[in-house]
């Protein structure tokens, strides 16, 4: 008798659609000569001093488990960093947990928090794993669509309107992937008031905090009385170009960190020590390199905005991360059709906006974590593509000012 695996599967998993990006990934891989602006990670390799420190740690024999919470020295460095950057204080012995990237931290937070029937509020468009994470934990994600007209920002009113007796937590993710939106302190204050009034836990994924170009990043935990009800998630992937190292952390209330640690110790045990050693070096000596990378992203951000303006695609100005989220419906195409036809006709890969939720269906995500060279060529091709679909570029403009750039 053969086993019907489909029947055996946990229905929560069986019914979960695979990430929209997967299918598109295969399409891109089959196409030749592609310039990809679809990559959600820095184009920089991890700075050498960090890699070198990791090699040294291996030479010295740092190949063992660490405590479940992670290396104390790293937790202390994180506590110092958070205190220095945002004035929020965490006890490194009980309030910080090192995880395998923010991805694991998210999963732990959902599993530690969510009971069947609990609702978690999530802004949309947003990173692909939030809603599935809530579902896997047995909860119900409640999406709150944001719009280009409102700069893809969440409003306190929206949060208030989405709350039901079942609502347990609110997830925030600013600067945002895929939109590049940032949230100002004022609106965050209002949202935090709602969270306090309605007794919501806030899970704040601030992985792009250091890549903020407009204004200053507001750390949610730094707002009045918010440290106690915030689970602050961050890591090293984006700011220090360390995506493949898989190291992140959660900071928050000791009881909650303890709960997350329980799951972590029975599943992951600890984050890889090699990656933790590298992260420690990043915090000790990586500030300069990180700022230089951020400065380069910002310069490219200006180029990208100018290019969209020139080719006539509406795009709100992203204030953080390394993404732009232009509205492509002006071409008469929805996000997937736009991405597929652009790939077919001009060999430029972008990510369809609907991969980040239905509210992204008029948009595509382009990542400017790419060389200025590639950006120039990609935008030249994209300009041709949208022109063929009747989009009028700015009169007299070169369309792309990057023609000669290496």
């Amino acid at each position, binding site marked *: 008798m053969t086993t019907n695996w489909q029947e055996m599967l946990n229905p929560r998993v069986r019914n979960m659609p695979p990430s929209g990006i997967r299918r598109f*990934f295969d399409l891109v891989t089959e196409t030749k000569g592609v310039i*990809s602006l*679809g990559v959600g990670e820095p184009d920089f390799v991890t700075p050498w001093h960090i890699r070198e420190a990791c090699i040294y740690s291996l030479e010295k024999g740092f190949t063992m488990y660490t405590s479940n919470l992670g290396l104390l020295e790293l937790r202390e460095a994180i506590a110092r960093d958070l205190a220095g950057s945002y004035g929020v204080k965490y006890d490194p012995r009980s309030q910080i947990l090192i995880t395998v990237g923010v991805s694991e931290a998210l999963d732990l937070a959902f599993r530690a928090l969510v009971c069947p029937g609990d609702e978690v509020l999530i802004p949309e468009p947003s990173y*692909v794993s939030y809603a599935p994470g809530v579902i896997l934990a047995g909860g119900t994600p409640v999406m709150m669509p944001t719009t280009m007209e409102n700069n893809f920002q969440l409003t306190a009113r929206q949060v208030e309107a989405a709350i039901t007796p079942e609502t347990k937590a609110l997830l925030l993710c600013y600067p945002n992937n895929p939109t590049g939106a940032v949230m100002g302190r004022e609106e965050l204050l209002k949202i935090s008031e709602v969270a306090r009034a309605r007794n919501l836990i806030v899970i704040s994924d601030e992985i792009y905090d250091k890549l903020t170009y407009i204004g200053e990043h507001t750390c949610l935990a730094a707002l009045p009385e918010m440290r106690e009800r915030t689970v602050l998630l961050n890591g090293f992937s984006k700011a220090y170009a360390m995506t493949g190292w898989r190291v992140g952390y959660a900071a928050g209330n000791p009881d909650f960190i303890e709960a997350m640690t329980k799951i972590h110790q029975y599943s992951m045990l600890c984050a890889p020590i090699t990656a933790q050693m590298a992260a420690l070096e990043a915090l000790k000596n990586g500030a300069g390199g990180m700022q230089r990378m951020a400065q380069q992203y910002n310069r490219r951000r*200006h180029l990208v905005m100018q290019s969209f303006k020139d080719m006539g695609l509406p795009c709100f100005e992203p204030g953080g991360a390394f993404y732009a989220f232009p509205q492509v419906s002006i071409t008469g195409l929805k996000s997937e059709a736009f991405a597929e036809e652009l790939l077919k006709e001009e060999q430029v890969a972008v990510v369809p906006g609907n991969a980040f939720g239905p509210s992204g269906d008029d948009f595509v995500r382009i990542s400017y974590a790419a060389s200025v060279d590639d950006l120039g060529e990609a935008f030249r091709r994209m300009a041709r593509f949208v022109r063929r679909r009747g989009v009028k570029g700015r009169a007299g403009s070169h369309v792309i*000012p990057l023609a000669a*750039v290496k």
Partner: protein
Amino acid sequence: MKEILELLEFDARLTANEIAVMLNMDLAEVRRSIKELEDNKTILKYITLVNWEKVGEEKVSAFIEVRTTPQRDVGFDAVAERIYRFPEVRSVRLMSGVYDLAVFIEGRTMKEVSHFVSTKLATIEGVVSTTTHFVLKTYKQDGVILDDAEEDRRLVISP
């Protein structure tokens, strides 16, 4: 101003327009700044970094430690000038430590370089001694790794 220089130092081919966009500055202002920087010799030259080995060009270069006798009033400057005026000399720097001038020389053959050192450099008045080190291999120059094996290995699409 500094940011314009940073961009141009990294890539001299950037146009004023591109620089203006990247730095969110006014185009006319960028043009004016660059002109000013050129006029006051802050920007000395726009050059290309070439890996000559790729086209089979054999070049010999040597780094020479030069000890000198400093002269009254001008110190090391006069002897340095006598040296740096030679077109064979690529760079001259005054150093702290056991010797005074670090001189970098380029020629077509070892013989040519040695000849230059023995007949021109060593005989300059004020030069006390020279120690010549021939370059065997250049790994990195002006911040650029010559044979960089690191490439973009990222997945083409990721969330």
